[in-house]
């Protein structure tokens, strides 16, 4: 039984959607790539002008269409290209993720991280860590759409 479980976990390839702000985190991801740092290929990056651009609907639709985890990356608080965008994002995501948790969606499936353009290593580490968490949680069954399963 134990063996079965682990093998199933190792087989599970999660789909992770990362919303990255154009100015810091996307550049951070770029740096991670340039430095040949490893992070899971299952992370699909979506570039946004600012972490504050994330509409809660984006996150939910990502889950609907098969994402197992959603992570939002932006500039460190205080470093926003638009001065204050990430502060608003922070408040919004606090409320939204708390609400998702309240509905019984595992907390580990959502995350917000601040990654600067110079933090390629942090980007890779964050993604590795997040992917690991999501793999432990297994496939997203609670917020997925039955119609989207193959």
């Amino acid at each position, binding site marked *: 039984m134990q063996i079965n479980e682990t093998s199933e976990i190792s087989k599970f390839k999660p789909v992770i959607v990362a919303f990255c702000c154009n100015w810091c985190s996307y550049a951070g991801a770029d740096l991670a790539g340039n430095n040949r740092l490893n992070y899971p290929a299952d992370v699909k990056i979506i570039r946004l002008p600012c972490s504050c651009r994330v*509409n809660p609907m984006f996150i*939910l639709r990502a889950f609907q269409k098969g994402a197992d985890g959603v992570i939002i990356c932006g500039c460190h608080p*205080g470093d926003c290209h638009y001065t204050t965008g990430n*502060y608003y994002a922070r408040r919004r995501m*606090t409320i939204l993720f708390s*609400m998702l*948790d309240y*509905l*019984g969606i595992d907390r580990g499936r959502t995350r917000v991280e601040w990654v600067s353009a110079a933090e390629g290593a942090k980007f890779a580490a964050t993604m590795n860590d997040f992917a690991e968490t999501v793999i432990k949680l297994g496939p997203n069954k609670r917020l997925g*759409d039955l119609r989207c399963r193959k």
Partner: protein
Amino acid sequence: MQEIMKQRASVLLQEGKVDRVLGWQAGVFVYDITPSVFTNAEDLDHGFVYNDFCGNNLSKYLVKESRKEGKVAVFLKPCDTYSFNQLIKENRILRDKVYVIGIECGGKADIEKIKADGIRGVTGITGEDDTYIVDTIYGSTQVSKSRVLLERCMNCKSKKHVVYDELIGDDGEVQVTDRFDMVEKLEKMSADERFEFWRGELSRCIRCNACRNVCPACTCEKCVFDNDDSGVAGKASADTFEENMYHIIRAFHVAGRCTDCGECSRVCPQNIPLHLLNRKGIKDINEYFGAFQAGEDCEAISPMTAFTKEDVEPGTLHTKGGN
């Protein structure tokens, strides 16, 4: 009370102070009351009613009514004034076109709760202190008023009018409630239990949009769920996901603006406890960004359009609470 209100409305109309009065109109039974606009004393005499079933929050109608020609008077219960204030703050109501008459409220009754014990064929309900005498075609029964109040009235947050031009009856005080009890109870459950709870409730949703359309915080000209151009619209309960999403997004969109007026739960044909979603938002805001009651003060800064540099990190929530 009803007679005083009717009198006052009719004087206001006669004096020309207002052109219309927004109030409640009696129906066929004692409880099927319709919000209505009265323009003359005859109409008022004919149908104006104020009783324990006038639950409708009239403030949302003012978004449209205050943009019409002339001035409108409106009767607002204490909790309705919070919604009104919030709408003023959002520039949805033109304040100088509205004459607010605050009215005392002793809690509104829920006909479905009265009927829950198998009472059928209600022909009349008369109240005496804490007891209703319910006449039905099968005989008459008594029910305790405190047991059949609307959920929001059982946890009445305030008997104080936060805004009014004149007052009929007495102004009360902000109440101490345990309205977050159920939210806390849910928070303490495991994620699995919470998921089961909400699936049980939300799976009954028929996507009639009554909660949205009655909500004084939902005043968008075009709701995202109706707007095909948004790319994320969806009006069908095509999958369990769509039900979940509709309610999550709605709760999120009204976070920081919801006054907890409880209309969503009142109108839900499937009795889904939607207030529990909104109260979670209110509770979180109180907890993370400081105590805030939407609509209390129309000058206060709304928590979702503000920030501090020391705000809580969403990440820290992952290690908080049960589970």
